[in-house]
C-alpha cells in the first residue's frame, strides 16, 4: 500500500490535569496529506486543532501523552518519541506558529533568526546560510537587504512573511500553519495566502492550515477537515463540504459565517462545545445539534465514508447511506 507524504493514524492526545484527571484533547484523528495538497483544519477554539499539529511536530508539553502513528514518507516519526521526531522537526516538517510574527527575538536581526534552523540541522552555515537567507526572503517577497533589519523595523505582514521564510529555511516537505493570517488585515492576508498557495503549487509543499476562518479555507485549501471536541467530524474536498455537507456541525458553521454577497440569515450555533475532561456518551455534538434523534444520545457515531474522499461521523449520514446503498 502506498502511503501519502504525511499520514496520521488514530492520533490521541491527553493532558494531565490536577487530581489525576485527564483532558482528552485529541480523540483519534486520522489525516492523510499528499505533496502539494492544501488541507484546512477548522473548528471552534478548544476543538484540538492546534494540539493535533503540535503533536505532529513533537512539540507538546511534558504534561501531554500522545498515542497513534504519524508516518512521514512511510517512517513512523512518533515511534520512539523525541528520538525519532527530532531529526525531522524543521527539516522535513516545519511550522508557522500562531502569532509567529510577534515571536521573533527583538534584539537579533531577522536574517540571523531565519538562518537558525539551517545551522541547527547543519544544512548550511556561514556564507551559504547568508545566501540562502537572501534567497528565502526573496521567495516570500521581502527585499533581501532586509536580512539586516531588526523585527521592529518590519511591519506585521512582513514579519509574518519572515516567519514563513524561517519555516522554509531547510526546505521542508510539510508546512503546518497555525492561524497564519488571523491578526492580519484583509489585504495583507491576501498577500500571505497568495504566497502560501504559490509555495504549494510551485514547490509541491504540503500545507496544513489551522484556522477558524471558513472562507479562508474555502478559497485556499483543496480539502478540509472539520474538528469538534477532539475528533474530525467531517472531511472532504472543500467544494463538497460547502455544497453537500453531511454533518450538521459543518452546515451550521457555514451558516454562522457571514458572506460578502449573501443576504442569507447568519445564525449562531447555540450552546458550547463539551468539556473534554470527562468521557462523552453518544455524539459529542448532540446537545447543540438541530437534527439529533434517538440514537445520538447513547451511541457515538463513527467517521464513515460517504463518497469520493468525503467522510462524516453522523448517525443521519449512516442512515442515509444505508438507504441509498441497500440493494
Amino acid at each position, binding site marked *: 500500500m502506498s502511503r501519502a507524504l504525511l499520514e496520521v493514524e488514530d492520533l490521541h492526545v491527553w493532558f494531565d490535569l490536577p487530581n489525576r484527571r485527564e483532558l482528552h484533547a485529541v480523540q483519534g484523528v486520522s489525516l492523510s496529506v499528499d505533496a502539494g495538497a492544501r488541507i484546512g483544519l477548522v473548528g*471552534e477554539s478548544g476543538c484540538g486543532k492546534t494540539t493535533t499539529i503540535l503533536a505532529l511536530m513533537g512539540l507538546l508539553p511534558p504534561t501531554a501523552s500522545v498515542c497513534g502513528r504519524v508516518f512521514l514518507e512511510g517512517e513512523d516519526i512518533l515511534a520512539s518519541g523525541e528520538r525519532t521526531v527530532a531529526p525531522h522537526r524543521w527539516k522535513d516538517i516545519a511550522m508557522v506558529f500562531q502569532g509567529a510574527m510577534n515571536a521573533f527575538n527583538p534584539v537579533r536581526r531577522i536574517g540571523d533568526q531565519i538562518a537558525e534552523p539551517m545551522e541547527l540541522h547543519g544544512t548550511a552555515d556561514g556564507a551559504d546560510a547568508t545566501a540562502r537567507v537572501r534567497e528565502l526572503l526573496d521567495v516570500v517577497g521581502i527585499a533581501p537587504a532586509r536580512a539586516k533589519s531588526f523585527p521592529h523595523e518590519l511591519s506585521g505582514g512582513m514579519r509574518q512573511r519572515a516567519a514563513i521564510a524561517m519555516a522554509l529555511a531547510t526546505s521542508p516537505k510539510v508546512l503546518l500553519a497555525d492561524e497564519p493570517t488571523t491578526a492580519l488585515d484583509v489585504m495583507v492576508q491576501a498577500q500571505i495566502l497568495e504566497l502560501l498557495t504559490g509555495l504549494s503549487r510551485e514547490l509541491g509543499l504540503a500545507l496544513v492550515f489551522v484556522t477558524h*476562518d471558513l472562507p479562508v479555507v474555502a478559497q485556499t485549501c483543496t480539502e478540509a477537515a472539520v474538528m469538534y471536541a477532539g475528533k474530525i467530524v467531517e472531511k472532504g474536498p472543500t467544494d463538497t463540504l460547502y455544497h453537500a455537507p453531511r454533518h450538521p456541525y459543518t452546515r451550521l458553521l457555514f451558516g454562522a459565517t457571514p458572506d460578502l454577497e449573501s443576504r442569507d440569515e447568519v445564525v*449562531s450555533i447555540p450552546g458550547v462545545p463539551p468539556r473534554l475532561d470527562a468521557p462523552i456518551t453518544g455524539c459529542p455534538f448532540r446537545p447543540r445539534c438541530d437534527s439529533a434523534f434517538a440514537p445520538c444520545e447513547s451511541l457515538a457515531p463513527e467517521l464513515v465514508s460517504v463518497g469520493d474522499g468525503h467522510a462524516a461521523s453522523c448517525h443521519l449520514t449512516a442512515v442515509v447511506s444505508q438507504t441509498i446503498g441497500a440493494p
Partner: protein
Amino acid sequence: MSGANGTALLEVENLEVRYPVPRGLSGAVLRQPHSFVHAVSGVSFTVRRGEMVALVGESGCGKTTTAHAILRLVEPDAGAVLFDGIDVTTLPHRELRRLRRRMQIIYQDPYESLDPRFRVEATVAEPLTVHRIGTRHERHNAVERALEQVGLSPPGLFSERFPHELSGGQRQRVAIAASLVLEPDLLVADEPVSMLDVSVRAGILAILDELRDRGLAVLMITHDLSTAARFADRICVMYLGRIVEEGPALEVIGNPQHPYTKALLSVVPRRDPRQRVTAQILRGETPNPIVIPSGCRFHPRCPIAIDECLISDPDLRGPAGASSAPHRAACLLAGR
C-alpha cells in the same frame, strides 16, 4: 432596514485628530519641527436613529480614533461632532458627562474589558452607580432588564458569576448589557466580534441588529467587510484617515466606485469555494500617516491613478458629481 427615514442623531463634520510624534532628545536639542501622526484628517458622516453604520478599513486607517473622538475619549484637533444637535467637541466636562449617558461604547476584547473581580451584576450596574442613577432596587431591576435584552436569561443564573465563569460570547453580552443599562441613543461597537468564535458571532451581531431595529443608532467599527455587508445599513470605507467611499451597504458592496474599495472587496474570501474572484492585491502597505502622500492619498498604491491624482485631492462626491448623492466616492475617476 429602517435607516433612511430616521433623523440624524450623530453628525460628524470634518473631524481631525493628530497625535504628536516624540522628537527624542536630539530632535528637541536641534529644535527639529514637531511631526504628527495624522490619524483622522477630515472625516464627515452621519448616523441616524435606527441605523447601523459600519466604519470599515485596515488597521491604522483611523477608524478607532474616529470613534474615540466622537465620544471625546481623545480630543479632536478640528471639526465638529454634533450629537442630537449639541457639539460634543466644545462641551464643558460637566455637561459632557451628562451627554455620555446617551452614548456608549463596547470594545473588541471581552476578556480584557470586564473587571475580573466584579460579578456580572456589579459590572452591569457600574454605569448606573457612576452616574448616580436610581435606588439599589431600581438598579437591580435595570440590570435584570439589560441582561434579558442581551439574551442572558434568566438573569439570576448569570448575575452572580465572575467573568472567568463565562464563555467569550457571554462576556461580550455582559459588556453590551453594561452599555445598555443607561438606555443610550448611540452605541459604538469597536470590532465587537473579532475576538469571538465564529459560532457565537452571529448571536452578538443579532443583538446589535435588534437594538438598531428598536431605534438605537449603532456605529460599528470593523475590518470585516462580510460582517459590514450583512449587518450595516450604510458603509463608510476609510483609508489613511479619510472616508474614501460611503453609501448604502448593498450599493458599496455591489457597485463600488473607489479603486481602494474595489481592491478590498476583491480580496475578501468568499464562503463558497466555487465562487472565485480575481484578487486585485495591492502591493506594499498603507503608507505611514506621518507623511501623507500629495494629491489623492491613495495614488501611490492605486492601479488606475493618472497624473492629476498626484496633485489634486478629491472630495467625496456622487457618481455624477452631485455631492448630495447617498453613494459617494473620493476619486477623480469615479463615474468617469
